[in-house]
């Protein structure tokens, strides 16, 4: 597992499988085949292994010491938050353009999983920031736009919870999700302008660094777990939507 190329191939294979499965889910096929359970089990195995490696195998970070190990939770959750919310926005557009109920269920589940990821991201971020920067919070563009994004999507979830009519709820959730994405993007640029230079330099380093491999392993583990949670949650949402669906029309009676 220490070969990054192997990791990449592994990850790409997993992503491809999940995408294929998701497409088949959207198209209504594979109803009885709970493919996400396999993805989830795979993710669980990877996260156990990845965290073990992060906690015990990875070299102790010199500047931050043991605290640096939080990186193996923090960075994957950051990547996954962005990825999930990107997909939320895509699902929302797909719903508004097609009106297919499955996209509404996907929007709902991906926002929920995304918000959990974002909260994990910020909690680990604060814990990370205290020993390294000396503060729990800094007005960095990344931090501010993440907070704004989380707030916007929490707002969408609350909006969703107060609406009763399924059609209206679906449309409004998608509208809210698109607005939230837009707000996150513009906030990032504006806060960047506010604090333009606040970034740190990178130096070209060897890619075969053991940390990179562990980080990647964790990122894929988080990815698979997220796919599992979203797919699972979508199934619940679809089942609920079906329960809400119209009962059969009463039979005709001659007048």
């Amino acid at each position: 597992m220490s070969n990054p190329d192997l990791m990449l191939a592994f990850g790409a294979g997993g992503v491809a499988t999940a995408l294929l499965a998701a497409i088949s889910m959207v198209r209504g096929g594979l109803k009885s085949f709970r493919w996400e359970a396999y993805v989830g089990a795979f993710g669980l195995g990877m996260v156990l292994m990845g965290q073990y490696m992060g906690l015990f195998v990875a070299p102790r970070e010199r500047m931050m010491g043991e605290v640096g190990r939080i990186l193996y939770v923090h960075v994957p959750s950051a990547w996954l938050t962005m990825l999930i919310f990107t997909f939320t926005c895509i699902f929302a557009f797909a719903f508004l353009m097609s009106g297919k109920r499955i996209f509404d269920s996907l929007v709902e589940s991906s926002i929920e999983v995304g918000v959990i990821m974002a909260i994990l991201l910020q909690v680990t971020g604060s814990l990370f920031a205290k020993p390294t920067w000396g503060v729990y919070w800094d007005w960095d563009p990344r931090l501010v736009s993440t907070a704004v994004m989380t707030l916007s999507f929490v707002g969408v979830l609350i909006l969703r919870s107060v609406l009763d009519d399924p059609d209206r709820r679906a449309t409004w959730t998608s509208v809210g999700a698109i607005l939230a994405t837009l707000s996150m993007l513009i906030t990032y640029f504006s806060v960047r302008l506010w604090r333009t230079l606040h970034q740190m330099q990178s130096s070209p380093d060897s890619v075969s660094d053991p940390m990179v491999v562990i980080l990647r392993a964790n990122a894929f583990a988080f990815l698979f777990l997220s796919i599992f949670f979203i797919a699972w949650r979508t199934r619940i949402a679809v089942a609920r939507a079906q329960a809400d669906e119209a009962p059969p029309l009463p039979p005709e009676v001659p007048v």
Partner: protein
Amino acid sequence: MTLLKQSLAVAYKDLLTEWRQPSRIAGVFFFCFALLLLFAFAMPNTQMLSDIAGGTLWLGLLLASTRSLDQSFHLEMENGALEGMVLWPVPPLAMFYGKALANALLLTLVTLALTPLVVVLYHPVWNGDIPTFLGIVALGCLALAAPGTLVAALSVQARGSSALLPLLMFPLVVPVVVAASKATTLHLEGDIMSQVDDWMRLLVMFNLAHWALDGWLFTRIAEDG
């Protein structure tokens, strides 16, 4: 062309309604005035007051705008006029742009009325010129009005709307508050490094993105039967 005409008719209707019942917009003004007084108590010294004058103006306006946006849609809900417009039929785009324009105008009006009060209460350095200041105010109010109108349309038709509007709106307009306060403060102090242009450009961009996207999103909310 009819779209423009109908948008203007909707805006005219909103402004006429405010004109006939001026106590509403006056209420918004005094709400904002009270906020400005209260903000001052939170400041440790008066020097700080003059530094944050631009920021408080926009923060107060943001809080006050939730009231005026909420009201503007409550008027439509009172006798089902919102549905009446859909069935009339007024195109949803005309409804959105008309209402957003009226809201922007009202906010601008409140801002202009508040400016002298900010000057008196907070003693900001005033090295700026009036046209640029007006430009910042107009851009900022337009930028608050577009997403605000859309979010007010959402929240007013949902349960527990009074809490929902700020919750949905504040994250959306963080860039407006940052850019408008920054531009106002820098401009008033005398913008010798010409940084105001960047902030105004950001406001223009924000306006473009939201005035384009929110109109389409509004048609989607208005179209659900």
